[in-house]
């Protein structure tokens, strides 16, 4: 099949797992013999792209992503609402590439509502792969979103398009924002096993924890610091916490230093995904006290596949596939509960801890197997191609109508924003 993939950001530089997922799917589908074109925005680091097994066109404009400082209202309108430029770019690609199917990943910052509507009107076999809420974290006015959706004639859910979600948690969250819909498949964040075997327990009995994530408050960096301080106070220096990732590193390490964790908590840097995967096998457990709405988190899958026991906020999407105390430890998102979970592993006999790691690894290698996940993605695409009727409109017609609505909406919104002031 000819497959068009849309993603607001695309590696090599990346912010989170969503764009890495788009990359993995593109590689996998190209590897299965499909002709793939990826549309995305310019590289975050401005570096040229490496040689890829698929075509990549960075013709989209992403106005909002988490590395940006606070954005003005106009960027919100284009990021969440509708971007005429991106409507036009995607319509052009639909005409030039003539895909058999379109797979949409993260559309945050691309004019979410407008793109969803364009795909529903004019794309052959459009499928959305949702791994996050495209409205999360951005300043917006819910009433304006509702109003624009009504103007665009949005029918609810994801415009009737088949949707793959990474967790039931995300499906519920999206239903609350976009209206009810039934995902056609649930595909978790996948992780390929590395060649590294489970590291043996430390001879001195030290338990090795790892915090590997975007270093941010919402990922629980300060919760981890406080929990580690509690454990240090109650159990002494019988554990370590390695920190991997980019973001608010200085803030986290200064907090660790202030809590007396200088010898315990060490920053290791930013690693390539494959290199980190190799390292994870050397840790006993992953600390992941992330915010309760975390939709998936690839690191949870990657840790479990490596035999690194995930200690995770109970409600997150990634925890849906793992049983508490069998394959992971599920906690409330607070330092007390995290410290208790850490202490339970410290107090656990090494053999029992290794057995726990092996259980986690076996389960993870079943449910998070990349081949299994890609099989499901491909099956959804083929099924959609077989069932979906031909698009009602040509891309040009759809783009024309959406462009007109975009201009009309902005005429009104400008006055409304001026009246209500900055939203957030």
């Amino acid at each position: 099949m000819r497959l068009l993939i849309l993603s607001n950001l695309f590696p090599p530089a990346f912010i989170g797992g969503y764009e890495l997922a788009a990359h993995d799917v593109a590689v996998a589908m190209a590897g299965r013999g499909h002709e793939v074109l990826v549309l995305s925005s310019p590289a975050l680091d401005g570096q040229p792209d490496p040689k890829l097994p698929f075509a990549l066109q960075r013709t989209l404009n992403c106005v909002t992503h988490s590395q940006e400082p606070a954005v003005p209202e106009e960027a919100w309108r284009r990021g969440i609402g509708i971007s005429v430029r991106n409507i036009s770019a995607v319509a052009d690609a639909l005409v030039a590439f003539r895909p058999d199917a379109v797979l949409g990943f993260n559309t945050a910052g691309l004019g979410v509502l407008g793109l969803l509507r364009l795909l529903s009107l004019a794309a052959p076999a459009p499928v959305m792969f949702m791994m996050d809420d495209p409205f999360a974290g951005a300043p917006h006015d819910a009433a304006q979103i509702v109003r624009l959706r009504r103007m665009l004639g949005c029918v609810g859910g994801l415009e009737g398009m088949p949707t793959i979600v990474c967790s039931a948690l995300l499906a519920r969250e999206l239903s609350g924002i976009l209206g009810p819909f039934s995902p056609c498949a649930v595909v978790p964040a996948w992780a390929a096993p590395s060649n590294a075997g489970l590291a043996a327990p430390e001879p001195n009995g030290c338990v090795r924890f790892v915090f590997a994530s975007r270093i941010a408050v919402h990922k629980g960096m300060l919760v981890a610091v406080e929990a580690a301080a509690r454990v240090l106070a109650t159990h002494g220096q019988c554990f370590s916490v390695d920190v991997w990732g980019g973001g608010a590193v200085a803030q986290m390490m200064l907090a660790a230093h202030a809590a007396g964790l200088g010898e315990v908590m060490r920053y290791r840097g930013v690693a390539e995904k494959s290199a980190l995967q190799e390292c994870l096998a050397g840790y006993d457990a992953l600390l992941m006290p992330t915010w309760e709405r975390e939709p998936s988190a690839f690191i949870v899958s990657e840790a479990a596949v490596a035999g690194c026991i995930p200690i995770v906020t109970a409600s997150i999407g990634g925890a849906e596939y793992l049983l508490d105390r069998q394959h992971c430890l599920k906690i409330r998102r607070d330092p007390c509960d995290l410290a208790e979970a850490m202490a339970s592993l410290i107090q656990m006999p090494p053999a029992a801890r290794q057995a726990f790691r092996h259980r986690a690894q076996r389960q993870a290698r079943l449910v998070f197997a990349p081949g299994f996940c890609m099989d499901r993605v491909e099956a959804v695409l083929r099924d959609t191609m077989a069932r979906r009727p031909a698009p009602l409109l040509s891309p040009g017609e759809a783009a024309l109508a959406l462009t007109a609505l975009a201009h009309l909406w902005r005429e009104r919104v400008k006055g409304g924003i001026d009246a209500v002031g900055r939203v957030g």
Partner: protein
Amino acid sequence: MANVCHAVRLAAGPNGPETAILACGREGAADGVVLLNGDPGDLGSFDPAALDAALAPAAAVHVHQCLTPFGLFMAARARMQGKKVVGTDHGGGEAASLAAQSHLARLFHAVMSYSTLGKVAASDLAVMHWSLRGPVDDAAFTLEPDDRRDRFHVVALGRVLPHKGLDALISAMPEGLQLTIAGRSYDPDYREALNRLALGRAVRFEEGLDDDGVRRLLAAAGLCVQFSVHRDLAGRHITKPELLGLAPLEAMCTGLPTIVSRAGALPELGVLSGCRVAHDAAELSDLLHAHAAGLRWPGGAAIRADAVAAYGLAQFGRAYLSCITELLSCGC
């Protein structure tokens, strides 16, 4: 016969919100009017499912006041349903978007105007153009007997607004003629100015006449005047004061002779036997004096026949259906 759906934006009342009406007509059945609740000034106020359901049976959608934000919105939504879209400008303003993005006019497969002026006004819209005449409702406005008319009774019909030139008309009225201005006032300052001008003159105002009241007025009058202007009493310039001239056409359908100004599309009515064009206020005064002195007009039947042949329902309907049929069969 495919269904043609109209999207009409009602003029607002002084206090209430406006309402959009979708009218769907089916051949062989009574016309159905679908009322969509919503405010044409707030395009997000319309229930999308209800709007789509209302548009669904139609093969073509005719959007009125097509250059307004509401008009562009309806055209876009109709296009999103794969409909053929025709637009007609009746005034009511233009969306700022269209001025900046003229290619948005391609939302319309065709634009229909009902006068040469309308065609000129749409000349920058790069879409197919239909130029039809009218229509005037010659079924509602029927021939009235000449012998029941009061020659010295002059009427002016329509909204009382500055661009209607009523101030010039009052000033031009000679002794011996009485004037009835029938229509609702929308500009208090202008109405006050007219009141002052009318002092000591045989001028009366009728507001709130219903359709029957208008017909009775036309039946009794001896002359109808429509003296719209491009520059009003306050010096404001109005680009399109009259796109057709419906009031004088309705009057002529009853057999009533008319005088019109040269503003907008009004002078196009000068080809009709029952219509004379006054090029300025002085000429208006001359014509009114001549009328008072016994100026001969064609008989009412001839006046009506001329108006109906050129602007009546039947000729419009034939031309309109021909255009719609062609549109539906083209591959555009």
